[in-house]
Structures are given as C-alpha cells and as structure tokens.
C-alpha cells in the first residue's frame, strides 16, 4: 500500500470499521489512485486515549466519548483545539442514545425512566466510573430527573437517582460485560445501554427473548471522530486521515452506519430507516450538565455527585 493509517477506535466497533475500511479504500483509490492500508486498534476508548497520549501512533480516532478526544487536545496537543468544528455535527458522523433492553413480554412493564425506580426492578448497566456507556446512562437518568422534577428540585432528583443507583445489581466495567451479565447470566430485569448495542444484542442472542424499550426522553450520545494531527503529520498521512473521517458523512457510509444501528444525520438515509429509530427527545450533555468538562468535574470526579449518591 502507498499509505498506511491507524484508526484507533472503541472496542465494539471492530465489525463496523472492518466493513467501512474496504469501502473507503475503494473510494480513496478512485479519488487519488493511491492504495491505502488501514490498521485498526480496538479497546475501551479511555484506554485508547491514554495509549495515544503515551505514544500509540494513531492517525485518526473514532471514539464513543467526547472527553476522550478532548483529552488528546488538552493534554498532548495531539488533536487540534477546535477539532469539534473540523467536521459537521460536532465532528460526530453518527450518534446514538441510551435505551432499555427488557426480557420477553416486558414482565416488569418498563416504559420509561420512572419505571426503573420501582422496588422490584433490578438494573444492569456498566459502571459510570469506568465506562463511557455508564456515564451516558447516568446522565440520561439525571436528565430525565431534571425534566421530570424541574431543574431545581435537587432533593427529588437526588432521591430518584439514589434509588436508581440502588436498583443496580451488577456494575460491570464495560458495556459488553453488562450485556453478558444481563443476557447470559440472566441477572436483572433491565439492561441500560446504547440503542445501537441493544440491537446488536438482539441480533446476537436472538430477537425473540428480549424487547427494546426506547424511553421518551434520553440523551444524545455522540460518537466523535478526529485526526490525530501530530501523528498524522509525522507520518505524512494528514490528507488520507482527514478524508477517512470526512467520508463517514457520505451517503454510502451513513447507510452503512445505520445498518449497524447507529442514528445518522444524512436525511436520505434517515428517511430510509425511520421505522427502526423511534422519535425520542434527546437531551444533550450541555443541557444536562453544562458540557462534558463540567459533568466530569461536578458529577463523576472523586467524591462528587455520583460518589455522594452511592455512599452508604
């Protein structure tokens, strides 16, 4: 190959990019006549960010955590300060939201966040401390509470969240672990995870045993992408890297992304798959917690809101 780039991505995107890469390779060859080889690295996105900071020579990142890209800009000046503005939609070619997976027939009758704090409902979702997925879940619940009880009703919000956290049976460290716990170990009544993953699970474990419930309010989970400019420059792959990310916005790519159960921005594709993605009121992190940096600082940091609510 004329050029080689390394795409560093979150752990469950292996299949996705394994499908996207040949598409892009063809596109790039048509466009420039050059061949490109794309290497993939998959692991938890925080860990990936850490690795890049310590020298993993990634050219592009495709994460499921805005903070993890941001840290590359903040700590290592590896990514442009204004990376969010480099590509449309906050540099998020696709997005998803937090949804529920319940057992067949929805025996506990779960329809929205409010149903999750019932006494006899056991929840499974990954640990917000270790997993982006978990943080989204927590923020979504928080957003619902704000929505429900009013922005200032801190006490009610807290008591809701406390019960919500108290209903958790198992805190796995990652989304996949939580899934296994729920599906294979048969623990819990509701698995809370990304909508995209919920569909994955149904494909993997059979559509019949589980039902997806998408709550009326939820959170906008963006899947940010960025070029690691310092590395790309060093490797001389800036152009192809940029194109690798831009091309994710093409109609062909968006269709591909939708087929992996992600929500996309391209209107044509959106219309095609509308039946699969019910309307939801999507709150942004900005709206719920004043943006990721604040969320991390005020909610997830050591001893802050989450810790306080979890205290015995």
């Amino acid at each position, binding site marked *: 190959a004329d050029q080689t780039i390394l795409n560093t991505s979150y752990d469950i995107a292996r299949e996705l990019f394994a499908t996207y890469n040949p598409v892009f390779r063809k596109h790039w060859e048509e466009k420039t006549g050059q061949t490109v080889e794309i290497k993939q690295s998959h692991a938890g996105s925080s860990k990936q960010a850490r690795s890049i900071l310590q020298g993993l020579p990634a050219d592009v990142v495709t994460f499921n955590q805005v903070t993890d890209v941001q840290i590359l800009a903040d700590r290592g000046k590896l990514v442009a300060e204004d990376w969010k503005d480099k590509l449309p939609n906050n540099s998020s070619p696709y997005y998803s939201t937090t949804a529920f997976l319940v057992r067949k027939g929805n025996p506990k009758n779960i329809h929205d966040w409010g149903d999750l704090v019932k006494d006899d409902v056991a929840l499974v979702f990954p640990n917000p401390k270790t997993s982006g997925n978990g943080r989204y879940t927590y923020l979504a619940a928080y957003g619902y509470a704000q929505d429900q009880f009013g922005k200032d009703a801190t006490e009610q919000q807290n008591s809701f969240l406390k019960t919500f956290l108290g209903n958790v049976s198992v805190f796995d460290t990652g989304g996949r672990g939580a899934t296994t716990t729920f599906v294979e170990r*048969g623990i819990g009544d509701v698995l809370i995870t990304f909508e995209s993953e919920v569909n994955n699970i149904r494909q993997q474990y059979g559509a019949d045993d589980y039902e997806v419930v998408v709550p009326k309010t939820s959170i906008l989970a963006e899947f940010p992408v960025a070029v690691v400019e310092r590395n790309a420059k060093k490797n001389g792959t800036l152009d192809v890297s940029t194109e690798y990310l831009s091309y994710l916005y093409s109609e062909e790519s968006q269709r591909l992304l939708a087929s992996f159960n992600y929500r996309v921005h391209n209107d044509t594709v959106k219309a095609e798959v509308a039946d699969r993605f019910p309307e939801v009121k999507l709150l942004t992190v900005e709206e719920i917690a004043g943006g990721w940096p604040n969320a991390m600082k005020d909610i997830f940091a050591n001893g802050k809101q989450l810790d306080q609510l979890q205290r015995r």
Partner: protein
Amino acid sequence: MPSSLSVASAKPRHKRVLPGFGLSLGSSLFFISLILLLPMTGLVMQTADMGWSEYWYVITDERVVASYKVTIWAALIASVFNGVFGLLLAWVLVRYEFPGKRILDALVDLPFALPTAVAGITLATLYAENGWYGELLAQWGIKVAYTPLGIIVAMSFTSIPFVVRTVQPVLEELSPEEEEAGITLGASDWSVFQRIIMPSLWPALVTGVALSFTRSLGEFGAVIFIAGNMPYVSEITSLMIFVRLQEFDFPAASAIASVVLIASLVLLFAINIWQGRYLKRLHGR
C-alpha cells in the same frame, strides 16, 4: 626477618572459588535494576509529584479504604483456602500413587496459563445463578457470582499453583524417619501430621500462602467479571486503580498501586526473614 613478616601479616586476597561471581551478580543486579527497579521509578516519580497530604488523601479515600477491606478479606480467605486445598493437593501428589496423578499434576498449573479474563468469564459463567454451580448453590441460598464470594473464588482460582508448587518440593524432601519415630512413640497419624510434619512444612506453606495472597491483592482481570463491583461491597483495589486510570489521574493510580506494592513487599520480606530464622533453628547455621 622483618620483610617476610610483613608479607605474612598482609591480608591475603582470596579469589572466590566458584567462577562467575562478578558475571552472575553483575547480570543479576543489572537485570533486577533494569527490569524490576527502573520501572518502579515511574511509580515513585508519579507519586512524588503529589504532596504528602494529597497522597494521604488519595489513599485514604473512603471508597478506596472500603476496597482495601474487601480485597484484603477476600485475598485472605482465598489464600487460606488455597493453603488448605494446596496442601491437600501437594500431599496427594507427593504421597500417593493413583491413576491420573500426572494429569492432576499438570492441571495445577492451568490457572497460570489461562488469561485472567478468560478465567473470570468462565468462572462467572459457572457460578451465575443460571450456571452449573450457581443453580446448585442457589438451592441452598448461596450466591457466589456478583458477591464478595465471587471475588474469593476468582482469587483462589488464579493463585492456587503458588501454594502447591512451593509446598510440593519440601514435602518430597521430608525424611520418613521423623514420621516413623513419631509413630513408634505411639503417636496417632493425626498427631504425627500436626506435630511433626506441619512444623517442617510451615515455612514453605506460609511462603506459598503469602505469594498467593499478594497475587490475589493485585488480581484484576479474573475478579471484575465475577465481582459485581458494587460500591463499598464488592469493589476491589485494582478496580480503584483502574478507575483512576480511566480518569487519566496517573498520580492517584500510582499512589494506590504503591500502597498495595509496599504492603506486599513488606509482607514478603518479613516472611523471608522469619523463614530464615525458623530454618536456622532447624538446621543450625
């Protein structure tokens, strides 16, 4: 003759008899420094960045302290269980002949070879309430997976070879005569075991249990899949380190890691010294 006197009184330089002192000690020091100690400087430098009070604050965080308790208790129970089971395994492997002994011997090392995550997932599969063991145990009202009990199971699985492999050689070396002496004096098998065999096994057994204990303190992969990771209940210290890493807080992660490391080293060193004393009593010099 003054000249010969002065020669005679000069302290002779004695060359070491066996070759390779310089080479072996040099390489060992080099190896230990490069592979073991140099990386430790990373830990030291990370923690040195924070002040003492901050260090103290990080390592005494309420949730972290809770995790110490869980981890230490679980590791303690797991290593004590391993002490008993490992001793039994070693005993059976050394003392008896039976079909399948070699396979049993080989199986002992299995936990070393399996990636810890695989071990964790597999154990979780077995002990979950819909797993082979979980179902059985559920009838008795015992839950293992996703409780502190699960932590113990995972820890003891990953560290059992330490006990077996340290006790086994010592048991093999044990002379039959002391035992026979005990029996001719009229002692029952149990008193011989307890009063004659065990005192000779203690050093090895304690070392094995200590190694198993320290390994359990540090275990992560196998435990998190089965622990449930509930705050204050089933969060282990390694998870706390992992959380700090996820938060990109390297100094805090290093600080907590240093607590575990120092505790382990102190324990091992103390045991080395104790063992030296104990053996000295048995062997004279």
